[in-house]
């Protein structure tokens, strides 16, 4: 069933016409591969303090010593010796007007409707191209409230003390895994957000990450500190052009979020990398007393994704809500899941994951919940559901739990099934084209999750999935 439809989902046309690369116009392109010289060169280029260079070099050492992940999708086709880890586009950095960005680059963001959205619904926007943040702008009235929203490179320069305390220390250590270490050595760009005590950021802040060159690497760093009783919604979007060959790109970003006492952070992410891209990403939040982190995590693109957003519920009353949508089509392997550590009493985790696969693609839910001794009166519920759109695609679930405390409530549900032939028959018998029928069934499947999302985000997800189905050739 649906074979033609499913195999045709292979094309990546869901980037507002951005599936083709721009010509490569770079001020600097590192030689392919990993070297200490390059680490020094990046640090020097950014005029970093000595301690950051040392941190990069330590990370490089850790990277060399650590083994590749021994679980999940195969990374054997990822040849790090072919990847250019640092690319500086031929443009000024940190601009606050779109007009100053070279036209062909600006067009990418315009196709995505970002400058338009900035005017209407966003409080601030960052736009990274290759290794550099070209645009970063925050609305004046937000700036006046003491909110900081700047390029992470700039953040390091302006707030060295905050960076010393929070940058790849307690949250994501370079020792977390091999690609976190690689990130620590080669990070460039990304976003730094600080929300002062009691400030609720009215409009979402958004950053968009675009990779362009063949065999490129992108290592943006996102550091968010939400001070006591503050609130912020951050939206992240990602994409890259499609290369019709076997070349690979590598995206290895790192997100660190500190949700201080009583604060609330919502992190919405829509990753739509091309099918050349290895997306080996790290996201983690540390949540203090009565704080709340909300992850909205959707992964549609990439060749391989390994991403397990992690929440440390460090103090009493800390909460995490995780909503995940993952879609793998032909030659895609999406390995994602939510990790939660309940370290204090009255903590709460609520995880809902929806996976889709078609055209021989594989999605896996790989989650982990740990309830430590002493986290009395804590609750955890995990629900993962999978829908396969044909017989050759796979959905796997690897949920695991370690419960060390008796006085807790824990639940887990997992269901995986194939799209119903009878349902398709019912809908098509009324005259709906098959792709509309499939589309409708898919949107019914993700609907309970979609309705929890902010409206713009929900529209975007629906649009991307509909486009995938629309571009198919049933």
């Amino acid at each position: 069933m649906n074979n033609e439809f499913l195999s045709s989902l292979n094309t990546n046309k869901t980037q507002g016409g951005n599936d083709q690369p721009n010509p490569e116009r770079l001020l600097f392109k590192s030689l392919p591969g990993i070297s200490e010289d390059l680490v020094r060169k990046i640090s020097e280029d950014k005029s970093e303090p000595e301690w950051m260079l040392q941190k990069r070099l330590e990370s490089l050492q850790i990277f060399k010593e650590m083994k590749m992940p021994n679980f999940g999708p195969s990374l054997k086709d990822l040849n790090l010796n072919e990847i250019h880890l640092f690319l500086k586009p031929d443009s000024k950095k940190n601009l606050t007007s779109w007009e100053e960005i070279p036209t062909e680059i600006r067009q990418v963001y315009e196709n995505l409707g970002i400058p338009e959205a900035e005017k209407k619904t966003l409080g601030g926007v960052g736009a990274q191209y290759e290794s550099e943040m070209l645009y970063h702008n925050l609305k004046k009235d937000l700036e006046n409230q003491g909110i900081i929203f700047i390029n992470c490179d700039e953040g390091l320069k302006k707030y060295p003390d905050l960076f010393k305390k929070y940058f790849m220390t307690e949250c994501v250590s370079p020792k977390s895994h091999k690609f976190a270490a690689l990130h620590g050595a080669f990070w460039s760009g990304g976003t730094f957000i600080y929300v002062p005590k009691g400030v609720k950021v009215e409009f979402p802040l958004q950053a968009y990450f675009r990779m362009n060159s063949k065999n490129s690497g992108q290592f943006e760093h996102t550091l968010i500190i939400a001070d006591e009783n503050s609130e912020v919604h951050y939206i992240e979007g990602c994409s890259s052009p499609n290369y019709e060959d076997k070349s690979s790109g590598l995206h290895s970003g790192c997100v660190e979020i500190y949700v201080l006492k009583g604060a609330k952070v919502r992190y919405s992410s829509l990753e739509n990398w091309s099918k050349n891209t290895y997306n080996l990403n790290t996201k983690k939040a540390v949540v203090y007393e009565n704080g709340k982190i909300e992850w909205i995590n959707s992964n549609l693109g990439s060749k391989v994704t390994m991403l397990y957003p992690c929440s440390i519920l460090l103090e009493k009353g800390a909460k995490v809500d995780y909503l995940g949508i993952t879609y793998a089509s032909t030659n895609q392997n999406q390995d994602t899941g939510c990790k939660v550590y309940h370290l204090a009493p009255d903590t709460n985790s609520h995880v809902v994951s929806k996976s889709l696969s078609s055209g021989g693609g594989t999605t896996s839910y790989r989650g982990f919940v740990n309830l430590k001794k002493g986290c009395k009166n804590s609750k955890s519920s995990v629900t993962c559901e999978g829908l396969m759109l044909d017989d050759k695609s796979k959905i796997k679930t690897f949920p695991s739990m370690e419960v060390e405390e008796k006085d807790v409530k824990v639940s887990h549900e997992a269901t995986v099934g194939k799209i119903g032939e009878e349902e398709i028959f019912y809908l098509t018998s009324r005259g709906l084209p098959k792709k509309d029928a499939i589309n409708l069934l898919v949107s019914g499947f993700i609907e309970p999750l979609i309705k929890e999302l902010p409206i713009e985000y929900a529209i975007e997800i629906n649009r991307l999935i509909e486009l995938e189905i629309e571009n198919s050739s049933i």
Partner: protein
Amino acid sequence: MLEIKNLSVACEEKIILDNLNLKIETGKIHVIMGPNGSGKTTLAKVLMGHPKYKIIHGEILLYNKSIIGLSPEELAKKGVFLSFQTPLEIPGITLSNFIRKAYNSIKEKKFSVLEFRELLEKKAKEIDLKREFLDYHINKGFSGGEKKKSEILQMLVLNPSIAILDETDSGLDIDSLKSVSKGILNFIKENSSNENKSILIITHYKRILEYLHPDKVSIMINGKIVMEGDESLIYQLEKKGYGWLKEESKNLEE
């Protein structure tokens, strides 16, 4: 209008329809009755182009043109409609939006959202289906009877040339049966002036037929039509049961 000649159909290597012959005349109400497992629902699904069934041989002609191999979507465009024995519950879209989507994909005439809503509400009222159900997801939260009404509502709005009603009467209480029958009669009547409609009713019970008065009755056993007649055949069957016909059918085979 619809003619089936020597049709044999298999599903998973098992023959279900066996050299079946049937002719449904334009403008008529045609009834098929038969014991459980005789292949009635298979026939309905085959006529609607279900991909699961394999047609071994035979012909299905709609207005003298073969419709074998057409997809359900294409058949819907040609005016074939199937009211499901067990209507499915499908979340993700409201009944109202679904019917509009279906309408727009098979019909030339386009309605504005408002006009279409008016039409839907009018038709829903005809069969006593509460308006609120239009805003539920397809058949979600509907009772058995309301699901059947939802099928009839779709038929009334999509206005096909031939409607196949697969046990639409099962599970209905007396009031719902009356409402559904009224809908079916309206479907025929409303159209008698301009275009002719046919209805193929698959049922186990004579009670719906008391409202509808079929023009022709065919009895199906083991994938074949074994006997045909007028309305009086139903009463004969009521008295004697299928046992009598099974004997006839055996004799027929021998």
